[in-house]
């Protein structure tokens, strides 16, 4: 066919023409502008409005930022320097307050010579959660994860080195009993006996044991009072501690809510809905005002611990709902397959259901954590020094820094933004990764 064609036409081109660049209006920056900014009258209008908005904001705030003063000892000095440099009526940021007080924003009133302890705790946090969050971290590090909470508490609050060791020993004792007895007695009996022995140990043995060991071989770190905690140290301690403690409780509550047993389900639902139905602030008031009513007379313990307990309850209720979503998202076949293999309830949960459900829930857990971390600022209302209001109010109480509002807001807001933004990006990347896994 092509033969006849070739004979009937006088000239057939047998080489390709070199490619031509697209017309000027159809390529490059011009085309991009036309498509993305000026594709219609509405878009053009929106673009112009956007440009106007950015222009106003920049014109308003840029001079203030540029006139910033880092080297001053009071807000008055700042203002004099700005007036001297930029003339009467000029405004500028007084970053000097950040330079002078940054340690209070970060560490609160923690003794400066001991700053290495919170810093070390913070760095070790990444070693502890690394194996859980990133696949490229060596799995060997996972043994460190269960040790970390005890180590962190000891590093932050100090005190006798025997305390965390012996408390950890109690958990090891319970776990050992569970492991030894479970082949002979079955997991339920073994768990009950292990838990019982561990509780007895905590109630009656651990206190005298620590005192005795401390008397024989004293070692430890200088102890730091809870009242010295503040700023981001407090926020991160409460946030991380709350999430860590609330994870097990949240898993139990989620399983309870999915349970076939009406009583267990009922209690779980009541707990979850009650906690989720009230503002965190009321729970914090419970921690600061009411907890003393609910405990035996004469009990009085640390405000941070009290707040942490209530924050844990609060986070647990939310995490339970996140994990319940994960459990519900698992195909029914997974449960049936576990049953078909003859696994009992706990084995099925541990080996088949929870690993998958938790994996699906990690993004939700991360966003719960972001929410919790933001909510830790509310502890200012029970008298703790959070970085957002507690510390700035304290700094403003100093006559030198009276009336300084925007610089602390910007500094603290920026740190919150960076931390939370990083976490939310992580959770999004995780979501994408998990999505690929499932398909």
């Amino acid at each position, binding site marked *: 066919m092509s033969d006849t064609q070739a004979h009937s036409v006088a000239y057939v081109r047998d080489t390709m023409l070199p490619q031509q660049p697209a017309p000027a209006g159809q390529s490059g920056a011009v085309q991009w502008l036309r498509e*993305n900014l000026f594709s219609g009258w509405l878009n053009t209008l929106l673009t112009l409005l956007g*440009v106007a908005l950015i222009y106003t904001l920049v014109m308003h705030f840029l001079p203030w930022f540029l006139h910033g003063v880092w080297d001053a000892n009071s807000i008055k000095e700042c203002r004099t320097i700005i007036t001297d440099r930029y003339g009467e009526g000029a405004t500028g940021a007084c970053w000097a307050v950040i330079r002078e007080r940054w340690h209070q924003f970060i560490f609160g009133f923690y003794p400066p010579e001991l700053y290495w302890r919170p810093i070390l705790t913070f760095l070790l946090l990444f070693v502890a959660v690394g194996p859980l969050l990133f696949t490229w971290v060596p799995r060997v590090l996972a043994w460190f994860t269960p040790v970390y909470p005890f180590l962190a508490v000891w590093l932050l609050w100090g005190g006798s080195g025997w305390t965390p060791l012996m408390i950890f020993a109690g958990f090891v004792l319970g776990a050992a009993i569970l492991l030894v007895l479970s082949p002979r007695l079955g997991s339920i009996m073994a768990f009950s006996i292990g838990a019982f022995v561990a509780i007895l140990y905590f109630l009656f043995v651990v206190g005298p044991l620590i005192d005795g060991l401390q008397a024989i071989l004293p070692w430890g770190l200088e102890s730091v009072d809870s009242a010295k905690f503040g700023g981001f140290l407090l926020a991160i301690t409460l946030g991380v501690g709350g999430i860590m403690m609330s994870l097990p409780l949240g898993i139990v509550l989620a399983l309870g809510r999915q349970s076939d047993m009406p009583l267990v389900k009922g209690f779980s639902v009541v707990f979850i809905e009650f906690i989720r139905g009230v503002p965190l602030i*009321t729970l914090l008031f419970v921690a600061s005002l009411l907890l003393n009513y609910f405990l035996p007379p004469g009990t009085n313990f640390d405000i941070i611990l009290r707040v942490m307990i209530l924050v844990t309850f609060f986070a647990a209720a939310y995490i339970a709902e996140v994990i319940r979503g994960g459990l519900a998202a698992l195909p029914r076949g997974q449960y049936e397959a576990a049953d078909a293999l003859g696994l009992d309830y706990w084995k099925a949960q541990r080996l088949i259901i929870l690993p998958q459900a938790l994996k699906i829930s990690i993004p939700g857990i991360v966003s719960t954590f972001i929410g919790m971390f*933001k*909510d830790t600022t509310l502890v200012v209302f029970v008298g703790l020094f959070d970085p957002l209001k507690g510390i700035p109010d304290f700094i403003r109480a100093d006559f030198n820094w009276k009336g300084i*509002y*925007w610089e602390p*807001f910007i500094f603290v807001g920026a740190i919150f933004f960076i931390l939370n*933004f990083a976490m939310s990006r992580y959770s999004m990347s995780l979501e994408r990764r998990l999505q690929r896994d499932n398909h």
Partner: protein
Amino acid sequence: MTSAPDAPEQGFRLSQLIYDTRYRSLTIQAIVFILVMGGAAWLVDNVIQNLNDLGKDFNFSFLGQRAGYDIGNAIIPYNNDMSHGRALLVGLINTLWVSFLGCVAATIIGIFVGVLRLSKNWLVARLMTVYVEVFRNIPVLLWILVAIALLTDVAPSPNAYKVNQQTGEAQASMLLDSVAFTNRYTAIPSVHFDRSLGSLDTALAPISLNFLALVIVLIASIWVNKRMLTHAAKVQESTGVRPTMWWKSALVLIAPVVILAIALGINPEEPQIKGFNFTGGTNVSNSFVALWLGLSLYTAAFIAEIVRAGILAISKGQTEAAFALGLRANRTMSLVILPQALRVIIPPLISQYLNLTKNSSLAIAVGYLELRGTLGGITLNQTGRELEAITLMMLIYLAISLSISGVMNVYNNRVKLKER
């Protein structure tokens, strides 16, 4: 024919309680029940003992006592001679009011931002992304504090709005000539009726009959409109032709209310500076404005994401299918896209409303007296009844939350996909 051998007859053994799945759940439930009840009993016992030690009792009679403090933002009539119970009620209404206005504003801003974030306009989409990320990742407390600092520190005093006699101009000018932000309050226009029908005195608050009449007329118009639409649907079913309804609907919905409002002599009253203060309009306290702004802007960022996700969740095939069926663009939107998108949007939206309502307790940061400020704040401090006040406050918040989620459940069941 074979028959299965009977299971060996055995008496009930105690170990069956643990090892037999028929009884195990009963055992576990019994143990859980005993543990929970034991724990509760322990707590209650501690409370009784602690109350005894302190010489206190547990009763709510303090709600009947004289409150003795003023509430600057009371919506229903209140003075400091009234009871703590009345103060509680004022606080509760303030909570609901700021939450309601916050939800409305957050929804409007959120829808705008969510839709604009999907816009093809690069600049606008980026700007909206920045807005969402900045507001979502910073605690709401900061936004409330920023708002109050803006209002008290940066806004001019009411005096600045006064026209200077010599120069003939004022230092500050009002927004759209009707809203003035000052460092003490925000002056906004109010609605005024020339002819009043009087007011109805109820135990809660006097209700303006003008307002009541407008509401009744509006409800009646909506009902009539609904009847007309049902009728139109009937006509369409029997004849195949739908009568033109839009102008009739508009007439029925708008005309009666407008006519009544004009008959009552409605006119906006704009705030005027007189002496050192604004009179005429309504002066809204800055604490309220700051709380409302902070909550709305923060929640709007979350709502924007929900709206965006809802729109993205509807596949393009739905639009194409609707076009293939010959539906016009607006009908595609109202009949195909929106009903499906709303099913995705509404549940998380309502849970954001819930969050906003709970976050309104942050009023403590700006000193706006809502439920936490009255019952959980001044009343608690004056009467020293922490246990009663906090319990009652939690129960009220719980009741609000549960009723909102109840509404959500009803909605979810109504729009649930009907599957096999």
